[in-house]
């Protein structure tokens, strides 16, 4: 049974002069330990979907079940990383993480909480910035603190809301590597749902990509498996054929949905067909000379 099960969920918001139907009949399932990336452009409804999954809002229709139980508000064993850090500026990095540890494990003493917080911060490479306030940290470091805060509570499920969206391109790249390492290692992998607008980020980090097709109302496209071995690195993936195939597939799906006409959808389908044929051709081309040489 999947760990997270979303069935037929719809959500609308009242706006001036009517309602905005953000999501319609959305279904998704996430297995335990899986990393799912929901990819779509801005305003496509992915933040709303994440809010629903996180229990921050309730759907108008449909059900969400996590761990077999219907979702009622924010789960105790869930952790979040938002796009805009949300660190308390009057607490040090250590104190920010300790606050989360204290709320999740109230039975631990202050010192135990602090040492756990310190461990996690060291794990994200901030061992020498424990006593600094968010104002004294760079954007990348602040996001690391936010990630440490999420991981320190030892969650069962993590929700990442465009976690690297507010960072510059270079910091984003290096933090992607960090995230890949943190979320991808070990046996007890945390079930993670991430929303992002970067296809490459999704390929680097996730096991499955779910494209969100813009509406309104938005719907989910067919999930695309990312069957690449871990650990992954951006350098390796840049030259990987499978990664390129997945990338093309995802972008084609998203572009086709954006244009919305059947003509472009047919064009996208033709492109996919062409890709499949050319890779087949490459495979056969490579064997023929070998066969000739063998003769």
């Amino acid at each position, binding site marked *: 049974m999947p760990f997270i099960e979303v069935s037929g969920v719809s959500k609308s918001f009242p706006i001036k002069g009517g309602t905005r139907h953000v999501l319609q009949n959305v279904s998704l399932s996430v297995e335990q330990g899986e990393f799912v990336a929901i990819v779509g452009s801005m305003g496509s409804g992915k933040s709303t979907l994440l809010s629903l999954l996180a229990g921050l809002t309730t759907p108008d229709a449909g059900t969400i079940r996590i761990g077999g139980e219907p979702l009622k508000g*924010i789960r105790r064993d869930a952790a979040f990383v*938002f796009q805009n850090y949300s660190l308390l500026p009057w607490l040090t990095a250590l104190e920010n993480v300790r*606050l989360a540890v204290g*709320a999740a494990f109230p039975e631990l003493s202050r010192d135990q909480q602090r040492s756990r917080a310190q461990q996690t911060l060291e794990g994200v490479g901030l061992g020498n910035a424990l006593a600094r306030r968010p104002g004294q940290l760079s954007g990348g470091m602040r996001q690391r603190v936010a990630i440490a805060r999420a991981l320190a509570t030892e969650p069962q499920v993590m929700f990442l809301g465009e976690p690297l969206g507010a960072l510059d391109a270079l910091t984003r790249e290096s933090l992607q590597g960090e995230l890949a390492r943190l979320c991808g290692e070990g046996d007890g992998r945390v079930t993670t749902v991430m929303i992002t607008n970067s296809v490459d980020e999704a390929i680097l980090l996730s096991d499955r990509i779910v494209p969100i097709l813009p509406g309104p109302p938005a719907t989910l496209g067919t999930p695309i498996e990312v069957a690449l071995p871990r650990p992954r690195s951006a350098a390796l993936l840049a030259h990987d054929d499978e990664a390129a195939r997945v990338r093309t597939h995802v972008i084609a799906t998203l572009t086709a949905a954006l244009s919305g006409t059947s003509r472009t959808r047919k064009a996208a389908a033709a492109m996919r067909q062409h890709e499949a044929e050319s890779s087949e051709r490459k495979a056969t081309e490579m064997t023929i000379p070998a066969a000739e040489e063998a003769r």
Partner: protein
Amino acid sequence: MAKRVINMLLPLCGIGLALLVWWGASMAVPDLPSPARTWEESKIYILEPMAKRGEMDQGMARLAYYSLIRVGRGFLLGIVIATPLGFLLGVSPLLTRMFDPIMQVLRPISPLAWLPLGLVVFQKSEPAAMFAIAICSMWPTLINTAVGVRAIPQDYWNVAKVLRLSKFTTFTRIIVPATLPYMFTGYRLSLGIAWLVIVASEMLTGTPGVGGFLWQEYNSLVYAHILLAILTIGIVGFALDRLMGMAEAKLRAA
């Protein structure tokens, strides 16, 4: 270097001009003493600030001290009442709607109107003065604290929700630190009002202090001392404001 000299000279020029205006006015109005005469008749109060020659005939420092003690008590009472109320109104739109009309009506009432009521209720002048100071000076603290709570960014509320912080932790770790700058702005304004009120209340009740001294000297026709009292009130008020401002600045840097 030149800039620093000019920066020191300009206020002195301003003061010089003000003294000129005073002197001019004293020439025109026979009862108004000139700056020179004011100094002559007042210097004993300034040069012997800690002297005590009689109930109302004391050095300026002593008189200011009495007034400050009263201000301190009333001001503290005011902020002790206003701060929790400010938090309550800040978090609850319902309570705000309930009490806003009352607040808007009570706010503009002058201390001179509250004082007789205070005397009726408390019978004695000290508690009446404290009551008048508290009820007049509490409004900036109350309003600023409520505004501060309402100004807390949604981000911080999200943190409390998402980390599942207890109500107590949310209050101590998020609400109070986020509202502190607003609270201190309120305290500064409240202190200014409290100082205004003490002078008025001392004048009305005749208790020893700067205001009491002022009124007594007016009744004794020693006008130079009125001006002395006025200057003292102004300088002490300025010093209080500055001290509060320093406390506020330290908080912002922290």
